Structures are given as structure tokens and as C-alpha cells.
């Protein structure tokens, strides 16, 4: 093992994480949650069209590989005249993907809030939307923290796929250094180590947040 290479490549890789992996994950997650919220609300809607569209969306996202989704957007869309740079392509693909998975989590969380909470909201005079927004979603949010954190952790790892559409993130830096130095084992293990540390930090944070939120959930 070449420890000099380990240390000298650590800087660029961390930079790849800080300038690529982390912002890509954060941006995609935030946008993905927004999409998920819309899809989840569509899915529980009594409007058949809305719930049908929501169901189809989830089915397509979960039924096709993320890599294929990414390639359709980056390499496929130009065929119909939509040419996107690597970064926007990656953010769109990842947020659409997170949107599909997180929609199911949020929907399940909404359905897990006891029916009495809807009724209490109506009893004090709230409309369906008001009850959803002020009573149900805050409670659903607490229930969805653990599964959503898992989605986020998966997303962080999945962003390595963005290297395949030329986004400069952690794994692409590793690939570049490896191609140049031929030290594949060292550099890919080093990349793995950095992903692992990031995920460790995230799951520690997750445990803490869960403990704090646990108590406000209805019986």
C-alpha cells in the first residue's frame, strides 16, 4: 500500500465529497421530499385521476433502475431536444427517484396517524386541507423520520452513480486518480471509507433525532 498516495489523494476526494456528493445529496433530497409530499397527497386524494397519477409515478420510479433513469435524462433527453448539463441532470434524476420512494414513506406515515386526529381537526372546524397541514402532516413527519433518514443515506451512496454522467463527485475523483496511478484497490477502498464515515455520521444523527421526536407521536 502506498500511504503517500492515500494521503495525497485524500484531499481531492474530500473535496469531491464536499463539492459534489454532499451538495448533490442535499439538493436532491430537498427537492425529492417536495415531490414526495405532492405525490403522497395525490395518492391519498379521493380524486381518482390524482391518485392514479400518483400511483403510476411511484410504480415507474420503483420499477426501473436508478441508473437507467439517470441515463434517460442525461443521454436520452437530448434526442428530443432537451440537453441538460451533468449537474442538473443528476439533481433531476435523483430527486425524481427520491420522490417516488419517499412518497410511499410519507403516505404510509399519513395513514398511520390515528383517524381520531382527523376527527378532532374537523371537530374544531378545520377543513380537510387545514387538518392535513396543521394536524396530520406534523405527526406524519415525525413518524417518517427513521425511514426517510434511511432514504437519505441510500441517496448519499447512490450519488456515486453520477460519476457515470461526468459529475465531479467523490467517486469520480477516485476513478480519475486510480486511472492515473493504477492503484485501484487503495483508491476505491479509500472512497468506500469516506462514504462509510459520512453514513456513520448520518446514522448517529438519525438516532438522536428519533429519540427526540418519539414522544410527540399519538398512541
Amino acid at each position, binding site marked *: 500500500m502506498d500511504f503517500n498516495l492515500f494521503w495525497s489523494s485524500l484531499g481531492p476526494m474530500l473535496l469531491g465529497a464536499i463539492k459534489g456528493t454532499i451538495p448533490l445529496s442535499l439538493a436532491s433530497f430537498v427537492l425529492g421530499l417536495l415531490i414526495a409530499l405532492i405525490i403522497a397527497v395525490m395518492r391519498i386524494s379521493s380524486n381518482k385521476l390524482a391518485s392514479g397519477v400518483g400511483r403510476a409515478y411511484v410504480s415507474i420510479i420503483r420499477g426501473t433502475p436508478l441508473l437507467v433513469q439517470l441515463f434517460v435524462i442525461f443521454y436520452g433527453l437530448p434526442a428530443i431536444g432537451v440537453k441538460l448539463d451533468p449537474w442538473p441532470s443528476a439533481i433531476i434524476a435523483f430527486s425524481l427517484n427520491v420522490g417516488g420512494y419517499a412518497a410511499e414513506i410519507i403516505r404510509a406515515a399519513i395513514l398511520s396517524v*390515528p383517524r*381520531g*386526529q382527523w*376527527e*378532532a381537526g*374537523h*371537530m*374544531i*372546524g*378545520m*377543513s380537510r386541507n*387545514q387538518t392535513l397541514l*396543521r*394536524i396530520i402532516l*406534523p*405527526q406524519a413527519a*415525525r413518524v417518517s423520520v427513521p425511514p426517510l433518514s434511511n432514504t437519505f443515506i441510500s441517496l448519499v451512496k447512490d450519488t456515486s452513480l453520477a460519476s457515470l454522467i461526468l459529475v465531479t463527485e467523490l467517486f469520480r475523483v477516485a476513478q480519475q486518480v486510480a486511472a492515473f496511478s493504477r492503484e485501484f484497490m487503495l483508491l476505491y477502498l479509500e472512497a468506500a471509507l469516506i462514504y462509510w464515515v459520512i453514513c456513520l455520521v448520518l446514522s448517529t444523527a438519525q438516532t438522536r433525532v428519533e429519540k427526540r421526536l418519539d*414522544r*410527540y*407521536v*399519538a*398512541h
Partner: protein
Amino acid sequence: MLPTDTEAVLQVRGLTKAFGSNTVLRGIDLVVPRGKVVALIGPSGSGKTTILRSLNGLEMPDAGKVTVGARDASTEQALTVDFGDAAASKKARAAEVAALRDRSAMVFQHYNLFPHKTVLQNVIEGPVQVQKRPRSEVVAEAEKLLARVGLADKRDAYPFELSGGQQQRVGIVRALALKPQLLLFDEPTSALDPELVDDVLAVIKELADEGWTMVIVTHELAFARQTADEVVFMDGGVVVERGPASQVLRNPKEERTQAFVRRLLHEI
């Protein structure tokens, strides 16, 4: 909040409701004069909860008329919803039901407090968010009401930090803060440990003495006898017997009422 006249706050005529093939209410009539308390009793599954939920717009009856009177007859009119009138569009019906619901408030068997809100936030949510009343005024009223039920010091606690009896008292305060014409209680003490029941019943008794108009579903016959002006015994979706509490509970005329009262007394 003392009764000034004896006009009916609630009038129910021919209320009917079926869940699929299961007909739960078969033409219920009910009149509650202002300031009076009606206790609804009857075996499990007889339709008591369904009546209350229909009055509060949580259940859509198939037929029947519900009228809730005005607080102040000089500025407001009594409001009638005719559920049998099929001509009303879905949207118009929803608006009617919402208006009806605004005049009553319900206390649930399982409290149904908002777990993510403090006691005070639970109480002021409706008045501030829905009724759009000034927050400072609502908070002051809420604090007074909480003090009345002995929970002044719990104003910033969360529901999970309270006993069942305390939670139900918050449930009652939440209903009162809406300033309804009519209070609906669905077995308000049946989810409580026995030693917590009396505090909650005492609060309800006080409200009765104060002149609130109430419909209470309860299995607490002693409480019903002390508090209710009228007891209505129902079974199988119909009213079997009704009358002054002393009569229905002590000397019921109908065989089914006799059997029910006897069974409940023996359980205790």
C-alpha cells in the same frame, strides 16, 4: 352563559343511517332545550356514537333533519340541515354540515388531543386558526378555562406528559374554547382508570349546573341520574324509552330498559 329561555338548542327528526346493509339509526328524534342535559344510554352497538358523530358532521346520515338553534336569536337564525333532501349538491351539503359543526363541540372517548401541540396550543388551535379570533384574547380565555379544571400549571405540557384524566379535562376545555351552542360527550370517562373518573365527571357536572346544553353518552348511571334532565335509552337504532332521569333509571317501563339498567348496576 346562563339559560335565558327554554327554546330548543337541538332538534333531531327522523335521523337515519346505514353502513352498507347494517342500519344503525332507524329514525331517531331528539329535542334538547337550552341549558338542558340529555344522557344517551344503551347497549354497545346501539348507535349512540353514530348519533353524536352525525350532529358534529363526522358522519353523514342518510335521512333526517337536524336543527341547531342560534346563540342569539336577534342576530342569528337556527340552522337546519335536511339530510334526506337529495337535491343538495355534495359541495352545498358539505358547507351546510360545516356550518352545523361550528355550533357544536365534541369531547371524544379517547380524548384525541393533538400530541404535537402543548395543552394551550391544543385549546387555542380552533379559536385562533379557524374562528380567527384575536390570539391574546383566546389565550386569556384558555388560561381561565384551564385554571377552572385545575390545569393552569399544565399549560405548556404536552399530552403525553398528562394522565388520562388530565387529558380528558384538556379535551373538555378544547371544546369549551370553541364557544359552542351544544356540547357532545361520547363516553368521556370510559377510557379512564377508575380513580380518575370522578374528577372528569365533576367538571361535566359543573358545566351542567352552569347552564351548558349537552348530550352525553355514558355508562355511568349514577352520574346520569345526578346530572341529566332527560335520559334517553336506545337499542338497535331506535329510542326505546325516554323521560326524566329518575324515572328511566329507577322505574323503567320498558323491559329492555329494565334489563339494561339491571345489568349495568350489577356490573358495578
